[in-house]
């Protein structure tokens, strides 16, 4: 009995001290986890406190990528632009020449947005596996790694976005204040990107060939999204199905606003936000339920 009294005393003191200092991580207790998820509140407080780490990781990555190739920045713009040309030629031929400059603007806007999401997924998938030593030696919220990858992809999306405005001007698309509302859909894209980056980062830890499957998965997803076609092109019997594609609302709403200055129907706004939230919640929880195993799996 005396032993327990002795034990209790110091630990209470320490807890008091932790409370006084206001330093959350002063006393940590590590216990086995059965249910898989860490305590969410302290996790996200820690995540927020160390957000600067994700930002720095992404900045360092971008710096090293730019020093490697002389045309680093130029390539960021050139790559999606060349792809847009390839798809334009393809669709132009398939449509028997019935595609004009307006379609080219629609195509580039959608393609640039899609490449932001697919770039996040590809970089996110590699984010955890490629930083094995950091994970083996430091305890920190691992979700910061895929988030850093999404941040990098987001900053790589900005130069193409600027180029889009040149295309918008060159193809004579209408200018309106509504275009500003497309920021809402960029926000939804961010959520989708974070969620999927987290999912694929986790999968990559368990199956190292995930990144080999990714290009095919992403290519199919691109063809299923309203990027190389208009929503109005969809035949009636397929129309009910295309709506189940998250990018139908997320990228569809984005290009409605940015390219045509049209305000999409309310259902598109709601669907885009719902998909974004669903992806980020499911993706983050899946990642969190697995992240404590990463240290032994890498």
């Amino acid at each position, binding site marked *: 009995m005396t032993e327990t009294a002795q034990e209790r005393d110091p630990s209470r003191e320490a807890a008091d001290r932790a409370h006084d200092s206001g330093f959350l991580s002063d006393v940590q*207790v590590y216990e086995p986890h059965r249910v898989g998820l860490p305590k969410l509140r302290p996790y996200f407080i820690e995540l927020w406190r160390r957000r600067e780490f994700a930002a720095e990781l992404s900045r360092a990555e971008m710096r090293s990528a730019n020093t490697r190739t002389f045309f680093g920045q130029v390539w960021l713009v050139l790559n999606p632009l060349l792809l847009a040309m390839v798809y334009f030629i393809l669709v132009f031929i398939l449509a028997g020449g019935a595609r004009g400059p307006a379609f080219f603007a629609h195509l580039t806007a959608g393609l640039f947005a899609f490449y932001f999401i697919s770039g996040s997924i590809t970089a996110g998938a590699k984010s955890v596996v490629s930083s094995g030593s950091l994970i083996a030696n430091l305890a920190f919220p691992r979700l910061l790694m895929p988030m850093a990858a999404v941040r990098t992809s987001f900053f790589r999306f900005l130069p193409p976005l600027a180029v889009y405005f040149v295309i918008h001007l060159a193809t004579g698309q209408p200018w309106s204040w509504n275009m500003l509302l497309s920021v809402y859909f960029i926000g939804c894209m961010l959520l989708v990107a974070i969620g999927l980056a987290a999912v694929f980062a986790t999968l990559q830890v368990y199956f190292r060939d995930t990144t080999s499957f990714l290009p095919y998965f992403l290519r199919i997803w691109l063809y299923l999204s309203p990027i190389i076609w208009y929503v109005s092109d969809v035949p009636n019997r397929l129309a009910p199905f295309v709506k189940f594609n998250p990018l139908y609302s997320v990228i569809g709403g984005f290009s409605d606003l940015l390219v045509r200055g049209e305000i999409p129907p309310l259902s598109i706004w709601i669907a885009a936000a719902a998909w974004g939230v669903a992806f980020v919640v499911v993706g983050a929880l899946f990642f969190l339920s697995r992240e404590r195993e990463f240290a032994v799996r890498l």
Partner: protein
Amino acid sequence: MSSLSASSPASGTVRTGTRPAVKVENVSVTYRTTFERTPTFKQAIVRFGRGERAVREVEALKNVSFTVEEGTSLGIVGANGAGKSTLIRTIGGILPPTSGRIEVHGRISALLALGLGFNPQLSGRENVILGGLANGLTRKQVLERADEIAEFSELGDFMDLPIRTYSSGMRSKLAFAVSVHMDPDILMIDEALSAGDAKFRQKAAAKMKELMESARAMFLVSHALGSVKELCNRAIWLDKGRLMMEGEPEKVIAAYTKFLEVGEDAFTMEEF
């Protein structure tokens, strides 16, 4: 030794009123790890077809309990694969225990096993900044420390070159400098003294003694038994995941070296 005199002789015995820095209670760690060098989806299907199991269980720690009080500098000795690194990774919160409980009072420094924890493409400075931020320091704190670290690790111009251009000695100097400059409450050093030249080792030992004045506790994993004797006032010996002995460094090391020479058959648990 003289700088440790305040805490060295008496801390081995349990004193009432001493605060625990780390409490390890019946901790076991069992890894489930894969056979394959690189686990792939393809292999998972092949294995499933053959009805094989993917994972192998490794019992890295078996029912280990001990308490480290404030002011203790704990040496951890044992053969390769005894569970030393697993133990400090578990205390550091990197690996969750499979059973048992660990209580840590204070902020723990980065565990840097011989220069790991670094991204080889980035410069030394960038790595220091990243490590510090991941460890929970603010940008301002990290930037202040980056210069101290550069000076302590004697890297000079190499600090701004990618880590891939470093020699292994330079990497471990940097790793050591990082972990001692993060103002940890609890310092953990894995094999750091085996790194660097003689001059740096001396400097590292001096720095660790200095840190013991301010840190709440220190863990030193080392095969260099001499430095454990010199720097630690308490030691534990692990063998195949079991805690074999806990006590004064002299005694633990004596038992451990005896065990190494005599072999396992002549040395059983009953002798304690």
